[in-house]
């Protein structure tokens, strides 16, 4: 047993986190910044932060993750990081020539109180930032929130720095996704395109962190939202936040700053949530749902009905980030599965994850969110009430192995399987992919575990 020291029962803890179900803000900010075209994410802190974030994102995406750091020394930690940041700007523009540098802070630079607004202003004054280039920043202290908060903060910074209202609407809809895979972003764009809707999406990491191998390394791959588009989002007719925790703050700011009406939907994972997005888009844009999407939906519903017996009544425990969790819980409901546990280390804030889950599953479901809600607690919960399937990130594999429960890898990080950056779980096509994966897991188990006389040829 790899997790042999986890006792049974639920251990009450107030100080010690064991096997976290979240990570820190800056990595989310770095990921969001990769969703701008020609942008270099910059970590204002010690070298280690940047090295850890790049390594983690690289292991998840199996793609180059380029980012720079202020390389704080003990001196800069005492006297402030301004000199380091100014020197960094010069080196970055000279060597790597991005259009944008997106700076995120770290616990270190937050504790010493570096004033990023002032430092960036000084950099412009001292001509450290070449003509036509820009620097944006987000405050991402690691001691509040989680990687999802950091992602939301950097997405919000994009609005703050770029979005402008010229007084003339451009007939576009702005789509702001929460922390999801590039493939999922592509799928959401596909839905808007099929409906004939002109859109702006940011952050958009598609074609950045899932780039092809063609004999060339590109520091800035062809994807990412151009900053002009973010600027133009201030003139868009509406903004849709996809996911409350990761996307709503940026969408809200677009409303406050540029008077763009906000709509908030869950991440379009599964039928109900995708239906909701399509319906929202239809109403805002005043368009009919095209035949192509009706077909995609119909195919997903077809599989759901045909194979319902294999998912109905199956028990599931989920661990991950609130926005994805909420839609996944809805999808479990769509497929007739019973959700036993929902756990996240990310503080839920005003999202009311628990209320939404209870709307679907009543009082029986266990919902845990925030401090000390970690994988150690999750392990104790599933030991008390064993599910048929666990949905969560790679680190869940140790629990799954010890307990012989199958794992559907979902969320961040996934270090031990590939595909998530190419094949979506959002939209109807993503729903089909997700459902097929779940079906394979249950049906493989049935084939493996059935009594000899009960092995079915046709399923």
């Amino acid at each position, binding site marked *: 047993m790899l997790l042999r020291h986890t006792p049974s029962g639920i251990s009450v803890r107030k100080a010690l986190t064991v096997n976290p179900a979240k990570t820190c803000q800056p990595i989310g900010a770095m990921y969001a910044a990769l969703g701008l075209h020609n942008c270099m994410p910059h970590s204002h802190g010690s070298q280690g932060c940047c*090295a850890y974030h790049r390594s983690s994102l690289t292991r998840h995406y199996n793609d180059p993750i380029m980012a720079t750091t202020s390389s704080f020394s003990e001196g800069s930690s005492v006297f402030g990081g301004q000199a380091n940041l100014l020197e960094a700007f010069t080196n970055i523009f000279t060597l790597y020539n991005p259009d944008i540098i997106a700076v995120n802070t770290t616990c270190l630079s937050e504790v010493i109180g570096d004033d990023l607004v002032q430092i960036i202003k000084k950099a412009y004054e001292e001509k450290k930032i070449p003509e036509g280039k820009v620097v944006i920043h987000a405050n991402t202290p690691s*001691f509040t929130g989680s990687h999802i908060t950091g992602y939301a903060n950097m997405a919000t910074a994009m609005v703050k720095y770029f979005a402008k209202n010229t007084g003339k609407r451009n007939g576009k809809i702005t789509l702001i996704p929460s922390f999801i895979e590039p493939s999922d972003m592509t799928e959401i764009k596909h839905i808007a395109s099929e409906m004939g809707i002109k859109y702006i999406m940011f952050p958009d990491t598609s074609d950045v962190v899932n780039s092809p191998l063609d004999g060339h390394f590109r520091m800035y791959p062809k994807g990412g939202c151009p900053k002009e588009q973010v600027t133009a989002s201030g003139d868009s007719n509406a903004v849709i936040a996809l996911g409350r925790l990761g996307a709503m703050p940026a969408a809200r700011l677009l409303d406050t700053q540029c008077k763009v009406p906000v709509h908030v939907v869950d991440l379009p994972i599964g039928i109900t949530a995708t239906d909701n997005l399509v319906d929202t888009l239809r109403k805002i844009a005043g368009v009919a749902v095209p035949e192509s999407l009706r077909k995609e939906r119909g195919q997903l519903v077809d599989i759901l009905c045909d194979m319902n017996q294999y998912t109905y009544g199956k028990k599931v425990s989920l661990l991950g980030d609130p926005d994805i969790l909420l839609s996944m819980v809805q999808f479990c409901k769509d497929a007739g599965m019973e959700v036993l546990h929902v756990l996240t280390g990310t503080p839920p804030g005003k999202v009311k994850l628990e209320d939404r889950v209870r709307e679907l599953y009543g009082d029986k479901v266990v919902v845990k969110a925030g401090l000390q809600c970690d994988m150690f607690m999750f392990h104790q919960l599933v030991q008390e009430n064993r599910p048929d399937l666990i949905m969560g990130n790679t680190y869940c594999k140790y629990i799954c192995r010890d307990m012989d429960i199958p794992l559907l890898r979902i969320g961040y990080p996934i270090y031990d399987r590939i595909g998530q950056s190419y094949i979506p779980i959002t939209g109807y096509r993503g729903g089909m992919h997700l459902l097929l994966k779940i079906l394979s897991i249950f049906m493989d188990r049935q084939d493996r575990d059935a009594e000899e006389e009960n092995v079915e040829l046709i399923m």
Partner: protein
Amino acid sequence: MENYQLPISGEQFREEVSEVYSPKLGKKRKRQIIVNKVEEGDSVPEILANTRTAPGIISMRGCAYAGCKGVVLGPTRDILQITHGPIGCGFYSWLTRRNKTRPTTPEAENYMQYAMSTDLQEDEIVFGGEKKLMAAIDEAVALFHPRAIGIFATCPVGLIGDDVHAVARAAEEKYPGTNIFGFSCEGYKGVSQSAGHHIANNKVFTDVVGQIDKPKDGKFRLNILGEYNIGGDAFEIERIAELCGLTLHSTFSGNSIYDEFASSHTADLNVVMCHRSINYLAEMMELKYGIPWFKVNLVGAEATSKSFRKIAAFFNDSELTKRTEEVIETEMEIVRKVRDEIRPRCEGKTAILFVGGSRAHHYQDLLREIGVVTIAAGYEFAHRDDYEGRKVLPSIVVDADSRNIEELTVTPDETRFRPRISEEEKSTREAAGFAFSDYRGMMPEMPVGTLVIDDCNHYELEKLIEYYHPDLVCAGIKEKYIVQKQGIPMKQLHSYDYMGPFAGFRGAVNFYREIDRLLNCNAFKFAKAPWDESPELTATYGFVADQ
């Protein structure tokens, strides 16, 4: 050492690459990019190392916390490790270094799968986190009853003034059965992981080594320092040691337990694998307990043979020497067979290596065994002695960044200092060519004319590839896909790409086969599509384009 003629001279590379930097940085980089030269007495050019990376430069380096918690202490399975700080650091160092471990029983303590953190929140940053750390220790003791607890400080902890050592002392009084110690390994200390290694060495030396005075049974008892059991390297080394009849008392720190560390001062010899990360401990154990040390290299079949021969020679026992020779003979028979099969397919290929504080050196031996030439190499976090050899130690200038890392003053232990060989005996052996407390460094073993680059950054790596088109690049995860997008195979020498072992004899065989696969597999040949080879269209079906 032989010469190697680079197609574009190293001098030209250095000049052209340095041009892009500011004059000040360019001048500094020129002192870190060296064209190798080896003269009488292993004399090599001076290289600038262990110096700050310029802000904004995409470096391969990490931080002191990574060096302390991630590298040195991480592989030990029964020291419960609590990261004191916000959640990130504990999360990223959770199992990512692939340190394998093999508990002796299904019930034995093994915390490898557990990442523990105080997950500091804003309030604690403002009002101090010591109380929460103490409460976390209380909870950890109640849940796990560990033998020992290590506390690792992250950046903000140092700045808000939390004293991890004071908390450790108070906790130890409360829990006398548990050895509790703290590491001030805030990420901003020093210039790289290296500072963390030193901090780890110091604390392990003062608080762990020497706690248990019970030696292991065996005639030839030694410790291996600086072997972290990535991919099972230490398992392979343990296997060979056992075949030879050696008693491996403890490994710092692959596949290790607290009790072995605590009693390691009872062994008679320390051999050092990764010189950079652990030479401090070897030095201090010699001064305090009289245990001699020398450098070994257990990466590469020839190097492994040589190292085990040296160990046998140290113990100077005919039976041990005979057994060692027998083991080498048997093992090398298998190694030679695979090597002879693979070598013709790899002969003359070129590699560049940027990794670690020893691996960029050690792996050159392995590559050489199958005919692959290393044309450029460097370390992420090494010091001058790792490049030029320990002979330069007296001339290394200690700068402000290094001065902040405590240098312990060590004196012989009043009761336990016992020189394992007399000064006289040592001198006699040294005169006969047996080197103690020595490391020759990487440069004397690299071909003349090749490039040695300290703290090679992304820009320079790109330029190396552009200038020299190496057949293979070896570095870490951050570099991996940058290289592979270009259709060049890349081997991770931190994580081994989730393979291994690569140390010892079986490891050598694994590595030959892996390099053979990388250099000769079909996959990378698809990087270019057929139409990329001849992009001009012929006119035969020109009408199609007209439509």
